[in-house]
């Protein structure tokens, strides 16, 4: 038991590393607060473009989305961070993270928003336009709020994923939580800081994970009743 404590939860080591670890946590949260809005706004823009586009433009947007969903974000980050200097462009780690994570997460956001928006019945657009609302007003006031509500669990899931994604910043030496813990481990020859980092991540994200399960459960139950309604509608149409 003592050995376990010395190796994994060493109080002495915690005493000297908790400050840098908290600073690392602050960086992690800062990165999340940078990437989540960037990705969400860019994703919403792509989804809106997708909804109004047709033909080739629509196909190109879908290729764009799928390309960046297929591209592992770590590869993208490293490609940017280590590749750009070889072309003579120095790029800061933060810029590389902002660009690569925004490309990655905006594609996921775009898919989520698109699914939500397309799930809103056409009649909602018609009703809004019929009362004289402009396209933008109809989109933002009538369609988007409904579409967003339907995909709330997916949005939350994506936000959790993005927060986890910021741990990749350790690879380009940004002093976020994981990187700080790895540095502390290397200097102290003890894994306590890494275990501590894992526990901090758990404390940070566990409430969100619980909430996600809760929202998912609610969605499943509404999905069942929605399916029943749809079956009934189909039945009625067939009767006509």
């Amino acid at each position, binding site marked *: 038991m003592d050995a376990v404590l010395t*190796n994994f939860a060493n109080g002495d080591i915690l005493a000297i590393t908790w400050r840098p670890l908290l600073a690392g946590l602050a960086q992690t949260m800062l990165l999340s607060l940078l990437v989540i809005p960037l990705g969400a706004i860019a994703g919403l823009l792509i989804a809106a473009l997708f909804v109004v586009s047709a033909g080739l433009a629509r196909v190109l947007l879908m290729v764009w989305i799928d390309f960046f969903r297929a591209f592992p974000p770590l590869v993208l980050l490293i490609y940017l961070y280590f*590749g750009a200097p070889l072309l003579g462009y120095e790029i800061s780690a933060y810029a590389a993270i902002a660009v690569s994570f925004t490309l990655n997460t905006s594609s996921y956001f775009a898919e989520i928003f698109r699914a939500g928006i397309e799930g809103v019945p056409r009649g909602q657009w018609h009703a809004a336009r019929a009362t004289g609302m402009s396209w933008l007003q109809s989109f933002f006031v009538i369609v988007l709020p409904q579409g967003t509500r339907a995909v709330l669990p997916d949005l939350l899931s994506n936000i959790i994923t993005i927060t986890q994604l910021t741990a990749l910043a350790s690879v380009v030496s940004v002093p976020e939580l994981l990187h700080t813990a790895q540095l502390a481990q290397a200097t102290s020859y003890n894994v306590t800081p890494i275990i501590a980092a894992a526990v901090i991540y758990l404390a940070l994200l566990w409430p969100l*994970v619980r909430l996600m399960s809760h929202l998912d459960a609610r969605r499943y139950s509404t999905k069942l009743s929605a399916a029943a309604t749809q079956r009934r509608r189909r039945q009625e149409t067939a009767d006509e």
Partner: protein
Amino acid sequence: MGRFVDQFINPVIWARYWDEMLGAIGLTVQLTLLVLLTGLLLGLVLGLIRVAVPPLFRIPIVIFADVFRAIPPLVILVVNYFALPFAGIRLSGFDCAWLGLCLVLAAFTEEIIYGGLRAVGKGQWEAARSTGLGSVTTLMLIVFPQALRMTVAPLTNRTIAIAKNTALGSVIAVPEILNIAMSALSNSANSTPLTMAALFYIVLFAPLIVFSRWIEHRFPQRG
């Protein structure tokens, strides 16, 4: 432009690392398949157990699922690689990545499967039980198939997202695509190996993404 070609798609560098990169692809594919197989299976079993057992016994499964969904996968790999040896468990980087990603996938799978099983109405259970089917038979033959239809789309998406995480193995010295590309990059001071890596990943994962679109269309999650 010439400089760009030279740095990013240099044919000489391309040829030099081609064989090594192919080997790395093999390893990535192997790791991915192992993670998918074990992770999905473990998650499925845990999800089924969770509906079948009394509430008290569900707690360990819930804790497992929450922990491995909350901690970033990269952190889990790093813990496996650096901390397990102190507990007397020595695993290769490959095994650490396999174990870590398998547990993450299992956690998400368990949660999705359980959600789907729960969503199948009480009426289905009662109807089946009233015709004399046992609880296990009801679960496997009546409830599970209905749940699977509902969960196949989110499950596919989640599985692909986790499969992409094999690239994280590069951080703990697994000689997969990104790892080999990075050492080739530092040896050659040229980005061509990274371009190769990027292309390989696109070739590996783009079909999966397209497949997931098909699945979403075929088994829509929303009505």
